């Protein structure tokens, strides 16, 4: 009974989701004329930023692993 996905798989999923959310939150911005969509855009933006941060954290962990492993 082991988790079937590796660290990189999770990182890739996070990257795809972060991009999807970031693009959605940007397209729903009032600057593009979408002022009649009934969604809490602030929360969408927060979720997008949180997912992006998680993805970047996985990248940082990987880079740290390479640097520590390389020395």
């Amino acid at each position, binding site marked *: 009974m082991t988790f079937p996905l590796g660290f990189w*798989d999770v990182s890739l999923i996070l990257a795809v989701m972060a991009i999807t959310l970031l693009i959605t939150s940007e397209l729903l911005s009032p600057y593009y004329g979408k002022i009649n969509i009934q969604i809490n855009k602030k929360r969408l933006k927060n*979720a997008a930023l949180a997912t992006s941060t998680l993805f970047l954290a996985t990248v940082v962990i990987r880079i740290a692993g390479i640097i520590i492993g390389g020395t």
Partner: protein
Amino acid sequence: MQKPKKDSALRRTIGQLGLTKITGWAILGLGALALAVSIVYSSSTLAIIGLGMIFWGVILTYIRNEEYVKELIFQSVGNSSFSSLNHILQQMGYSNKAIYLPPRYFKDPETSKAYLPKQQDEKPPTPEQIQTQEMHLFTENPKGMLTTPPGLELTKLFEKRLETSFTKEDLSYVERNLPKLLTEDLEIAQSVEIRNEATKITIRIENSPFSNLCNEAKAFTNAYNVLGSPLASALACALAKATGKCIIIQKETTDNKNIEIEYKLLPEEPPKA
């Protein structure tokens, strides 16, 4: 015979919980189940599906829609008070443009009122004249009326969202923050442009649902000509507080979904020798 009762109870429960919330929790539960099964059977496909479903479940439960009121209802509620204000002004014979007074005219700097002159000249009263009779609806010297502007509550909402008072800020703060507030935060416009030309400030608001309210307000000729639409009035209150000068709504035009409001800043009276 029990079925209709059960159906209505189910519908009521769904209504109370909200369809989005139920969908969010259902996706979250299915995702967790898929993830658990993927661990048992070591299936990467199920794990990806499970992670994806958990993610979207969390997103759906977290990003719920805000509470919205249909524009039609909002207009109907606003119009009745504006209509009664129009009737009062018509009966009392006030037709000159209102002067939005800055905080120095009142003992409490957070007070915001509009002065309606009885005589046809734009000369504003002095702060001393207003301070002695600020609690009265009708002023004797000079003859006029002191009223609460129709957009005052909207100005208070602006201040609440900006977490400041316009009294403490200046015009450059309004120029920097008001467009962002109206577009990104309150989402009542696609773009806002503020032009400051010495004694005139022009605000152009594009693609705003408020344009319908402005058009509706035009039907109440007296109140509209004297005090302006609620949005114009709210912005006049904010400008009077930020500039510290008396403000008059010079012109308000709407075309399609755009609103353009021209404000005139009245010159300060030189101190009496």
